[in-house]
Structure formats: structure tokens, C-alpha cells
């Protein structure tokens, strides 16, 4: 069984946010408005989190880190769900079953990366935007929690295609929308259980680090960066 994960090279990332929009389009996220954005209710499954450094110091810098769901191996969110709406699936992906979710939001509180989001509003796609919806992903109703799925539907499609071709699934068959779109090629995706995969090789880099590793969540998103963020610190 594969262990899907992502590596994001912050030295290559230009903070263009193509990943953010690619994800929103792929996953049928409704367009926000100024009002919802102002209230912090606009939904994005991956977003860029700023880390400023050296305010007033000699070498100030700004780091912008793309944060999707970490698909932790020990996710704090699944443990608190009272209705088993979120679980670790066979492929190691942390899934969310919208039909089971009761919207209690325990999981949004439990997630240390705050990547889980609650649907405060009914989804609305003003005519004719509905025509652009993808049939692969259900539109979430109001009152449920959603989050990055690593484009799980793409994994299903890739598995089907591989099965039809009578071969095992290969590297590159399955990429989430954000990884596919990334202009500078800062994101890599693959199977951490395969020692020859690109992500496995990158994860061995001295520049590699994980977010909030000390919590014991074992995130499957690994970052690469030189200097103060990476292994050199």
C-alpha cells in the first residue's frame, strides 16, 4: 500500500498562489465575496501562511509557506470526530465524509495546522457558473467541515486507468491539482514507501523539515528550505 505525500521546496516557491486557485477550481469551491472573506469564512484548502522575520533587524525577510492538509500519520482531527466522519483511509489519506459530518467543528479546533474549514454558507454559484463544476467532487452543503483531500478523486481515476492498462500505479499517474499547476515546480508528489520516488529522495535532503513536528503528528507534507527553516538550523 502506498503512502502518498508531498514535498514543497520553499526555495523554488514564488508565492504566486496558483496552487490555491487550482485547488479551488478542481474541488468545486464556491466563489467567495468581500463579505465572506472579511469574516474569515472564505474557503481555501491550501493557503499561504506568512512568516516574517527580523522586524527592525538587519536582515528582515518574509517567508510564505503553502499549507495544505498534512495528511498526518497520527492525525489529531480523526480522534475527536464523534461520528467517524473523518478517518485515515487505506492509502494513508485523511478523508472527510461529508454525509456523516454534523458540523460540530471539533476537528477544526483539534487540527494544529488549522487547515480544516467549516461551510458557514450555502454554496452559491451564480448562473452560469454551475456549468463549470466538476462531476468528480461533490459540492459540500452548508454546515459541514471540509479540507484538502490530496485530490483523492484523482487517485481513484489513476487507479482505474492503471487497472485498465493492467499495470500498477506509477509515479506521475496521480498528482493533486496544486502540484500539477505549480509554475516553478516547487511541489513534488508521490509515494513515501517507494525509496526511489522523487519525494523519498527529496525528503532525505538536509534542507527538509516538517511543520510542528514536535506534536508527533507525523505530517506527510515535507518542506525544503535552506538556512533558518531547514535542517541547517
Amino acid at each position, binding site marked *: 500500500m502506498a503512502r502518498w505525500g508531498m514535498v514543497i*521546496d520553499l*526555495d*523554488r516557491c*514564488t508565492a*504566486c*498562489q*496558483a496552487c*490555491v*486557485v*487550482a485547488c479551488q*477550481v*478542481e474541488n*468545486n469551491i464556491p*466563489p*467567495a*465575496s*468581500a*463579505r465572506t*472573506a*472579511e*469574516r*474569515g469564512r*472564505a474557503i481555501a484548502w491550501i493557503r499561504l*501562511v*506568512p*512568516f516574517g522575520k527580523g522586524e*527592525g533587524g538587519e536582515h*528582515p525577510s*518574509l517567508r510564505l509557506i503553502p*499549507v495544505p492538509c498534512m495528511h498526518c500519520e497520527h492525525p489529531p482531527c480523526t480522534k475527536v470526530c464523534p*461520528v467517524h466522519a473523518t478517518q485515515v483511509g487505506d492509502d494513508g489519506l485523511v478523508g472527510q465524509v461529508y454525509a*456523516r459530518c454534523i*458540523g460540530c467543528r471539533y476537528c477544526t479546533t483539534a487540527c494544529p*495546522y*488549522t487547515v480544516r474549514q*467549516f461551510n458557514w454558507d450555502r*454554496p452559491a*454559484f*451564480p*448562473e*452560469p*457558473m*454551475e*456549468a*463549470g*463544476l*466538476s*462531476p468528480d467532487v461533490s*459540492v*459540500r*452543503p*452548508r*454546515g*459541514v467541515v471540509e479540507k484538502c483531500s490530496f485530490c483523492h478523486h484523482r487517485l481513484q481515476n489513476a487507479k482505474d486507468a492503471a487497472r485498465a492498462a493492467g499495470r500498477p500505479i506509477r509515479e506521475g499517474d496521480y498528482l493533486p*491539482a496544486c502540484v*500539477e*499547476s*505549480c*509554475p*516553478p515546480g516547487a511541489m513534488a508528489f508521490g509515494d513515501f514507501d517507494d525509496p526511489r520516488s522523487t519525494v523519498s529522495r527529496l525528503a532525505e535532503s538536509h534542507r527538509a523539515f516538517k511543520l510542528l513536528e514536535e506534536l508527533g503528528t507525523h505530517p506527510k507534507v515535507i518542506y525544503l528550505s535552506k538556512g533558518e527553516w531547514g535542517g541547517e538550523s
Partner: protein
Amino acid sequence: MKIERRRFVGLMLGATSGAAVGLSAGHLLSKTFATADSPYDPPGGIEEFRLSVCSLCPGGCGVRVRCIAGRPVKVDGNPRHPVSGGRLCPKGQASLQSLYHPDRIPGPMRRKGERGSLASFEKKTWEEAFVEIGGRLRSIREQGKPESAVLLRAGAMSLGSRAGSRFLSAFGSPNDVRLDRGDEAASIALRLTQGVKSAPVYDLPSTDYVLSLGSGFLEASGSPVASARAFGEFRQVRTGRRGKFVQVESRLSLTGAAADEWIAVHPGTEGIFALGIASVLVNEDLYDRDFIAEHAAGFESGPTPGSKPGLGLRALLERDFGLERVAAETGVSVNVILRVARELHAARASLVVGPRRGPLLPGSLFDHLAAQALNALVGNIDGEGGLLVAEETPIPAWPELSAKGPGAEGRKHSRLDGAGQNGGKLVDSDPEDLAGAILSKKPYPVEFLILHDADPLHSSAAPARFAKAIEGVPFTVSISAFPSDSALHADWILPEAHFLERWDLHTTPPGLSFPLASVSKPVLEHPLVDARSSAEIFLELAKRVGGEVASAFPASDPPSLIRHDMDGIFAAQRGAVMGTAFDEAWVRMMEGAGWWAPGYRTAEELWKGALEFGGWWDPFYDHEEWARVLRTPSGKFEFKADLLDGIAKERAQKLTAENGNATELSLVLFEPLSVAGGFGAELPFLPALLDPGHEERWESWAEIHPETAKIHGLRDKGWVRISSAGGSIVVRVVVTWRVVPEAVAIPAGLGKRGGGRWARDMGANPFKLLGAARDPLSGLPDFQGTRVRLEKAQGPETGPGAMAAWHGSDSGLSGLELQNTRNFRS
């Protein structure tokens, strides 16, 4: 009654908590879950992938569109396309929102009431539009004043853009004016120093060291995806090598955030910093002596072959750009200048990138000339990892225009904007002077104005002047997909078909070295609204005018026109159909050895291949082809030290005058990628992306240094009125160390009064602050020299931002999220 599981559990939970905290809370909670189900159930269907070219910016990315039952549902890069390489920027990703936008212009609209509101327009048929517009054009021509027609355009190098230019010159007018001039200052610098008329190409993937003089090349370059891909390659850890990137600017941009080092300089002194580096290189003998000796002129003072005797660069640097002086003027320490100069020299290949900030912000010519001088000193002109010169796509000329008749007579008139060499200006277009000429009716009045994709009421340096000017034009036609500010002031709005709804041919975007022609055919068989491509519109107008105007095109419909151009490319006998990385390497190798191995034998095969894979290109670049890249009178790279000297003196005078007024700050403008070029706020995924460095979304803001904020009594998230000699705007305050104390930074791209439900009244337009001042020598609007005053304001003047009364009080999850995320590494 059917009770669904979610509702049941919700009710139970509501009841339990209701019992605990009181019934009203329980009632509220259960109400929340009662209406939970989604009304959307997207239907499935056959999946297909079709190719096209994104034209939301001039970048020209080849895209691959995923269609379900014929409906486009996702746009990604076309993996074979040399610009996008299978990648796409956020704007391209959001492009389906422009296709399915609820506020697209539904069909041709004729204004019957007041300007400025869509309610004043009524829907007409295309035939009615062509009868009236064609009739108007014919009568202008019959009266013998075709020069009074003006075309103001912006956007991609598309078929429609070429058809518009062609239509106008065949009609008999010289007034073909471009509104977006992001590449203009860099092009002029290249023309002065290398005699080449095109935007510079930076060979980022092969360089080792990048010194950027305030460039926004990672946010809003001519082709953002191509730049980002090049940056990715530059950053790739190759054996023992990883490019270093230093950004010099007075406001830490997102490009700067991606750099290894930010050198903060006083506003507008990036060029002086560059000349300081140049003076270290010359003093310490670290420059490329061979290149200077063989291929450069004007390094030493005195007469040079082919040009007038004058000041040499060495003498200028010694006299005016000594280290101490540069350090004092830029605010950068001598040590840093010395270190950067030595790093620049020590790198195997180093590159200095000029200060182009975005599609509307070209940067000052002085800074671009300084960047050019540095590039020549380090000897990277046309070398690998250096500064290259683009090759044009070998598109065949369209039929020659008649040298006689009303068309030829009309073209002989001087341009209304006085641009170009005949007008004695270095710029090719001067829309602000065009507005002036329209108002003054001199040298002749304007009878007919076509706005093609151009929104001068928002995106020019003189929005107010254009608003007045457009009222003085008897007849204005706007070709626009959206009710832009300018379209709402026109007499006719002709909706342009979306790029997924039309035939198109895109040539090389600015900033890329290789010639290319991307062919796209409609992804959707019928446009979703009653729209037509601009190429179709111009072809039809040409037919209605008739005679030599109609025969100025080699074909009468867009696909035949594209086929004609592709046949010409076949005849050029070079390049190949867009292919895989292996194909690319193969073509490069073969052409390098003097062979042509295109993989097609006939024009028909090229056409089929181009339609199937996205187009044609020629990846081979011949370095150090001096006759092509150095086309000055002397045949050498010219330093133009006398011009640098002249501008420096003019700027010094201005600075002395300004220093008297210490309460004023320098205005620094920038263009966030998602709204660059004046388009993007229309699409609701994009206003959330303006700058991930802080929380401001869906509104304009001013970045102000903490010290400056204190002096002016401004607090973070409060409001500030920013005023200049040109006008004033009210924006949100962001107190940040990302900007130096002497400057205030504001994003351009918002502040529209039109543009549909999302863009309307969002934020403010900082172009209103620009005065009539011009950048010395280039004659471009002075986008970087405006001085502004700050004053505390109570709230925004218009728009959704007016809800600010409760800002911060009901931030829901966001406050918690931000707090959490900020503690990641603390």
C-alpha cells in the same frame, strides 16, 4: 416526514447542548443544520481534453482544458507548450470564472442614456452594430479624414490585436496606441544601448547570480508562468550550484520575498545603487575587459567610431558615483555595495534585471540603462545565463497597403499622441498625451475611438483626463468582454469572445527568446453569450468599409487568416511543432549542427501538427550573434553615459526641491499577480490572493513603515487618506517593515467602478494619484516619482470595505487560525 441522518444527529446535539446552555442556543444550532443539503449535483459525461491559449494576460500560455460532456471544467497548462510547460498561474487557473462569469456582456450593446452605467445600454444584434459602426466609419473616410479614427489597445499579441492594427492603418490612421507599457522602458534601454527594438530576455535558468533592481519578475512579468518556471530551474540544486538571488528595492515585494537577500534602498535609487556597483567593478578591475574592448563603445571618454565624442562611463562613474556618495544616496552601507559587486563578478554567469514592476509599471529609463551598463560590464550580453535578444516569429507580411488613396493620405498625418520617432519621442505610444489631444482637438479632432481590451479610465496614468476626453469623442466603440469602466462610457460595447470560444494565433510574449506561434481553435463550439472574437469584428468592419480596407487582409475569416500565417512559417524552413522535452533537445541539437529536422514535410502537416499539439516554435538560440544583437550605429554596445549623466542631473534637481518638504513620502506602486495589467479583480478567486504577506483581502491598502505611521498618528488596520498633486484616495493602513520609512506602497489593479459584481467598488485606484510628471528622457508617465501626503481618515469612501466598522470583532475562525499558524515556529 423524512428525517435525514445529519439532521437527526444535529437535532440531537442541538437538544443536548440546548439543555445545557439554554433553549435558544439549541434552537439556533439545529436551525443551522436543518437546511444543510447542497443544491448542486454536477452531471457527468464524456471526458475530453482540448487545447487553447490563455489570453488573460499577454503571457500566452498554452493550456489544456478538461471538458466533461463538452463543458470546460478545468484549465491546466499544455505540457508540450514552451511557455507554460504544463503549468499555469492563478489567473489562468481562474480563467473559467471569466468564461462562466455572470456579468459578461451578453451581446452588442448600444448606449441610450447617461454614461457610466450598464442600465443605460440596450441589447442589439450584431447586424445592427455593424450597420451603424460600419456606416459611421465609411462616412468618416468619405469625408477624407480617416486619421481621426483612433485605436487604443492592450493585452496579448493575439490575432485580434494584429487585425486591429491592420484595420486601422488600412483605414488610414496612424493612431494605433498601446495602453499597457510595462516593457516600454526596458525596450528603450535596449534600443539605446544595443540598437534592438524589443524587451530584454533574461536567461534565468542558466545563470548563477541574479541582481534585480526592484523588478517584479516573479509577480507580473511579461509571461508569469515562463518566469516562474525559469526561476524554478535557476533554483534547482544542480551539482554544487544553486543560484543566488539578490533583490534591491524600497518595498519588499513578493519577488523580493523569494530572494536570498533584500537590500532596502531609498525610494527611486535602485539605478544609483547599480551604478555604485558598476563603479566598484571598474575601480577594482573586475569587469569583462574582452567584451568592453571588442564589443562596447562609450566606456572611455572621447570619440568613438560611429558616434559623437562624449563622456565615457568610466569618467562618469569616477566623477559622480563614488562609493561614499552612492552609499549616502541609497542608504546602503559601503560594505554591502562592495560585497554585492564582488559576488556579481565572482559568479560564473550573473544577470542584472531591470526595474519593470508589472504590465502597467515599466520602471524608470535611468534604472534600466544602469542595469544594461552592469550587464555589459560583467560581460553577459548574449552569453549563456545572460541577457538575450528575442527573435521574431517569421509570420509573413500581409498584403502591402496601397501607397495612394485616402488610406495612404490619412497615414501621413502625425500621430495624435506625438509618439514614435516622427513625434520626437522615445516611446511608441503615449495614451496620456492622446487624452490631451482629444481634449484640445489638436492637431486634429478625434471622430472615432475604438477601445480594444483597453480600460484607460482605470489603467492609464490619467484616468480622470480620459474620463473627460471620452465624453468629447463623438463615437466610441469598446471591444470588451466585461463592463469595464471605459466600456460603460462608450457608445457601443461589442463583447469579445472568451479565449475558449475563438480561433487565435499568439506570437512570442515579451521576455522570451524563442520565436513561437500558438494556434488555438474554439474549445466551445458556440460562445456562451452572443460574443465574437475581435479578429472577426475587425474583419467584418473592414468588409463594411470595403475597398482597400477589405483587401488589406489575406483572408476573410480568422481560421483562414491563421492558416495563411502558418503557411508562411512553413516557408521559413525552421523550427518544429511543439513537442516533448526530448523533441526540443533534438531540434536544438540538429539546428545547432546546421540541420532542419521539423517532423513535417508539407504545410498541411505543420497545420495539423500545430492544431494537435498547440503550435510551432524554434527552440534553438544562437549565442553571440553580434550582428543581430548589437545593431547600434557603431555596431557595439553603447553605454550612453551622457544620457545617464543628463538624467542624473535632472533627478538631483528634483530631489533637492523635494527635500524641502519632509512631510511628503514617495509613492511606490506595485502590481499583484492576480490583478496585474488591470484585470483580475473581476474573477472572484483572485481578490483573495492580492498579497499573502498580510491579511488584507478584497480591498486596497497602503504599506507604511512603523516609524512613519507613528509620526502620522496612523494605526494598523485604520484608514488613511493619501493625497498628491494629482488627486487623493482612501485606503486601509498596513503598518509593516516591508517598506522603507520614506515611502508608502500601494497595489494597482483595484478601484474599478465597473467590471461586474465582484470588481465593482473594490478598493481604490492609485493611478489617480499620478500627476502630469514624466520620467526624464523616456517620456513615460512618472510612475515612481510621485510625492504623497498622509492623513488619518475615518473609513473608505465606497465599496464593500465600508463594512469595516466591525473589522476584527467578528473574525470567526480566522483570528484563531492566524494565531495558530503564526505560532508554528515560535
